[in-house]
């Protein structure tokens, strides 16, 4: 330790580590614990309004008969959103990564194109797709008209969630493809050679060689996908607004309850109630992530 570069003495390492830890604690841990505490109060977010400790009232209200339908709808939409966008996104990303892993001209350009949506901000993506799916004059409406139908797209309660999921998959492909490409390039070539000498078809190679060797990348992508989509609300907020029951997500409910997301939100509760919803969301995300992580780690270990 004492002779190794770059920390011949322990003190600088300790100082920088402490500074980093301090930033993390102040800006991440303290607010998270704070949210847990304010979930038990009726804080409104404006200094001056008295705050009362109300115990489990917020949680009781969340599960009360009046709000339960709305909240279960939000949880259902969140789970559909998370599962479909993760599964379809990963299957698509794997296919694209396998295609882009081959050596042909322009492969770098294609990789850049696939990665481009990740670079765009949520607002830009929302604006682009709102314009594309404009029911009166957008390109999608023209294509729909070719089939003799017309649709309200984001305004149609049956179609809205599906469209939002499609946009989310489009926006998230870049990161998944990059992770899969990195994983694919780590697979040794001789495995493919030996398997084709044993008479394996490309499809069998994909199933028996590629996917098992990609297990760590799959774990990474699945976890990123699930945790990310269980918490993401930005795209839904931009595309369909904060109070559309067809695309109501739990994280969006937190935002509109805590910060009055829309001028027509009807009733917004106290921020304590929003904190209570976020605790419920934390429990749901935590349980799902742990279960999925356990399963995937076991699959990795089996190799």
């Amino acid at each position, binding site marked *: 330790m004492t002779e190794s570069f770059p920390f011949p*003495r322990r003190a600088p390492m300790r100082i920088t580590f402490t500074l980093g830890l301090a930033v993390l604690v102040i800006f991440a841990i303290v607010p998270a614990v704070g949210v847990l505490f304010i979930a038990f109060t009726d804080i409104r*977010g404006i200094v001056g309004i008295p705050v009362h400790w109300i115990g489990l009232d917020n949680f009781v209200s969340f599960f009360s008969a009046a709000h339960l339908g709305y909240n279960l709808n939000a949880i259902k939409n969140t789970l559909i959103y998370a599962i479909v966008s993760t599964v379809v996104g990963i299957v698509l990303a794997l296919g694209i990564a396998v295609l882009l892993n081959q050596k042909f001209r322009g492969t770098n350009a294609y990789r850049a194109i696939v990665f481009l949506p990740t670079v765009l901000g949520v607002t830009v993506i929302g604006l682009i797709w709102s314009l594309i799916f404009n*029911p*009166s004059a957008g390109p999608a409406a023209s294509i729909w008209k070719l089939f003799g139908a017309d649709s309200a797209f984001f*305004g149609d309660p049956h179609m809205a969630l599906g469209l939002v999921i499609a946009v989310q998959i489009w926006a998230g492909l870049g990161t998944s493809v990059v992770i899969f490409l990195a994983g694919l390039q780590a697979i040794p070539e001789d495995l493919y050679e030996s398997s084709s000498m044993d008479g394996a078809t490309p499809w069998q190679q994909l199933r028996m060689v590629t996917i098992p060797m990609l297990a760590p990348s799959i774990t990474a992508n699945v976890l990123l996908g699930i945790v990310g989509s269980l918490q993401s609300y930005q795209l839904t907020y931009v595309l369909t607004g*904060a109070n559309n029951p067809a695309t109501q997500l739990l994280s969006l409910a937190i935002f509109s309850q805590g*910060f009055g997301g829309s001028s027509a939100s009807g009733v917004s509760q106290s921020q304590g109630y929003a904190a209570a919803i976020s605790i419920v969301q934390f429990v749901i995300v935590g349980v799902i992530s742990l279960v999925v992580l356990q399963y995937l780690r076991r699959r990795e270990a089996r190799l």
Partner: protein
Amino acid sequence: MATTKLRSRSLARRGLTAVSAVALLGILAGCSSAAGSSSTDGAPSGTLNIVVSSADASDAGFRAVNAAFEKKYPNVDVKFSAVPNNNYKAAKSSRLTAGNVDILIAAPTEVPKFVADGSASDDDLSTDAGVFLDLTKQPFMKNFTPSLLKSIAYKGKQYTVPTGVSYYSGVFYNKTMFDKLGLSIPTTWSEFVTLADTLKAQGIAPLGIGGKDSWPAGLTMISAVQGLYPTQADKEALFKGLWTNKVKLTDSKPLEVLDRVQKMYEFGQQNFSGVSYATIPSGFASEQFAMTADGTWDAPTIASAVGSKFEYGYFPIPTSDTAADNATLAGKVDLRLAVAANTKNKTAALAWMSFFSDPKNYATYVKVSGTAPAEPNIASSAFLDSIKGYTSTFSPAWDTIWIANSKAGAAASFPFNYPGIAPLGSGTAQQAAKQSQSDWAAGF
């Protein structure tokens, strides 16, 4: 090793590095704090922070007033920010906490005794906690129309300055198109239905609604309540009846409100549930629909979109079969300004309010923003003059009287469940009413 030799073992050097790092952080943090200063003697000086919710017309009006104010008081630096509507609540909360806002928008509404605790809005609770200055005894309040001031009083006191009045239970209509088809302004519901059917037969969408943002569709609900419960007393009786559970949302008259809304949805343009409110003025200007349910706040935007393509006007949607019930437009006092109690520049804030309320400067605001005036004897725009017949009595709109129950379900927020009716939702008026009644009852 060469690297260890270069590294200084001196404690003093390391200490100096640490101290300078901390100092740098401190300087950077300090750079971002607002440089506010308060006035000392009677004359206003220093910085004045005004934060309002954004709308093109009113923003322009405020900017004109601010420019004139800075000319009169050169020592004051007015920092004006207009925040989009959806983010205003969060911006207001953070700036009040930081203590760097002097004038802001607030709308405290008196909560009657029959409304349960927990349904008061943030503005009500803030006013009770003394977050806004009491302006009742301020001399500039005398400039405003007394009946308006009475309608926005909170517990007998005045905390806000009304900047204008908007009316929104009507439609902008394409006068040129009406004249061409020989149509006249309907005064009863059956006349309105006949008019819309005639337009539909001609292949023209009768009503333009910006359904994607949800609240524009609620304007049809506001007009329905305005026609079926014409006077303020009717609306207040409905308000009390619902809260004391003597009136159900599935009773015949409340159900009629939703029936009207459903009929108006049928007159809406194709797939209006996916059309955003921002595209409505251009849709109206390109004659995609003959009428659009909108408020007079949008008059300047409609004017610039339509230009001189055709003549247009505004009339109340006649949702009652008695013509007399449909004779008044529902309105609200728009953009009420309050002074933050923790303001660092009280002199400048009150001077600005006084300057704004002065009829000379208020007339400028009204002219630039196109709002209906909240002071008597102020010239209003030609458009507002054209609807004078409908606005001679101020009739507060349903959503300024209604207070929702925070313990009730989401379908009972308005409480008429207009988002539950197809194509915004997936039910008929009957089903939407049932849903909202069960959500309402669950809150007790």
